[in-house]
């Protein structure tokens, strides 16, 4: 169907590749799972192979790996201090996973796993779960001081504490929705403009001439989406670092 080609939602459809059903749950290996595997495989292979020579003077690819490593290390150290470095493998994995998933999604016909709310929510829930579990493990009930800012009058506490609780609860939502919405909106926009190119071209010579404008838009949007892909991976990692800082130092 021609309508399929210009349907901007089409790219988000989950297609079952290997149907698996265990205990009444649909656990099929889908195109989404395939791209998760691809993301992990590409990121792992890049990090592994680029550093395999262990050169004292790094080559280009090794430099990229080292820069990513030091970038995340500095980010985490700035946000959560040296104590936060125990979460470094976690934050680095998150950053690389989201980054590679976003970048991979930019290729035409590729599935963007971060454009599905459940994936970003899964990652955000993992972050907040880590914060809560580690926070209570390390500080016990002292972790609840997170909701009681220092130096606030008792009367104000009635107001401040619920606000703090709400802001904490909304964190997994904002963290996941931010990434999901950015990727989704970007890909829909790209698809809409690309769809204009296809539809207009089908109208004959005048249409082909008219399709130059949406084509230019699509090119510009691709560049913007590249920026968004990098930026959202960075934002996700930075916020993770800040939330982990709360787990380490709950009293503000």
């Amino acid at each position, binding site marked *: 169907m021609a309508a399929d080609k210009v349907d901007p939602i089409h790219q988000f459809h*989950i297609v079952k590749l290997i149907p698996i059903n265990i205990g009444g749950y649909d656990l099929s290996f889908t195109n989404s*799972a395939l791209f998760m595997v691809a993301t992990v495989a590409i990121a792992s292979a890049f990090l592994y192979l680029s550093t395999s020579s262990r050169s004292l003077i790094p080559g280009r690819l090794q430099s990229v790996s080292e820069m990513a490593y030091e970038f995340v290390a500095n980010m985490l150290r700035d946000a959560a201090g040296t104590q936060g470095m125990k979460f470094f493998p976690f934050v680095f994995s998150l950053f690389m996973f989201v980054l590679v998933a976003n970048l991979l999604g930019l290729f035409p016909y590729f599935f963007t796993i971060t454009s599905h709310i*459940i994936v970003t929510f899964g990652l955000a829930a993992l972050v907040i779960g880590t914060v809560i579990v580690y926070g209570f493990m390390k500080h016990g009930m002292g972790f609840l001081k997170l909701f009681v800012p220092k130096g606030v009058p008792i009367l104000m506490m009635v107001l401040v504490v619920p606000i703090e609780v709400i802001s904490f609860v909304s964190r997994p939502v904002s963290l996941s929705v931010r990434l999901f919405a950015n990727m989704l909106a970007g890909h829909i926009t790209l698809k809409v403009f690309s769809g204009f190119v296809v539809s207009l071209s089908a109208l004959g010579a005048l249409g082909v001439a008219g399709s130059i404008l949406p084509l230019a838009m699509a090119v510009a949007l691709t560049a913007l989406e590249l920026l968004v892909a990098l930026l959202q991976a960075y934002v996700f990692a930075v916020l993770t670092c800040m939330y982990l800082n709360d787990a380490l130092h709950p009293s503000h």
Partner: protein
Amino acid sequence: MFVTSAFAQESAPATEGAHTGTEGGTHSATEVPAEAHGTFPPFDPATFPSQLLWLAITFGLFYLFLKKVVMPRVGGIIEVRSDRITQDLDQAAKLKGEADAAVAAYEQELAEAKTKANAIGQQANDATKAEAETVRKKIEAALDKKLGEAEASIASIKANAMKEVGTIAEDTASAIVEALVGGKTGKAEIAAAVKSVAR
């Protein structure tokens, strides 16, 4: 219509809330949906278990791989490099210290050599002067001696000459006396006369 509605309704009653409005059973599980309406795919709960499971599997493996293999390696590379840089800097500082010490030692030796050279020069000068002095003294002494000898010989020659003068005078006197007076005069008388006149 979305791809998994029929499948989900049959097998997962827990997720039925989102699908009550859809007509199930008309699509096979693997069919790509043609209609744009239906559940928006990212919000389709039927895909959630599968996506969460595969996310957990892939991200878990990724985390383990990075933690066990990649991060020790990259961290090791960076650490080795920073160690190497500090080591090189230390060595450079050490070598610089050695070079400075060598320069200082060289300068000290140079200064020592200079003073030594000066001392040697002075000594040589002094020795030469002393030697010249002794030689001069020796020569002077020799000259003095020769002068003395010469003076003595002059004096003796003079004395001889004076003696000769006396004899000549006596001879002359005796000859004069003989010619004037005639006859011989005693030699002793003439000598005495000459001596008194000479005085």
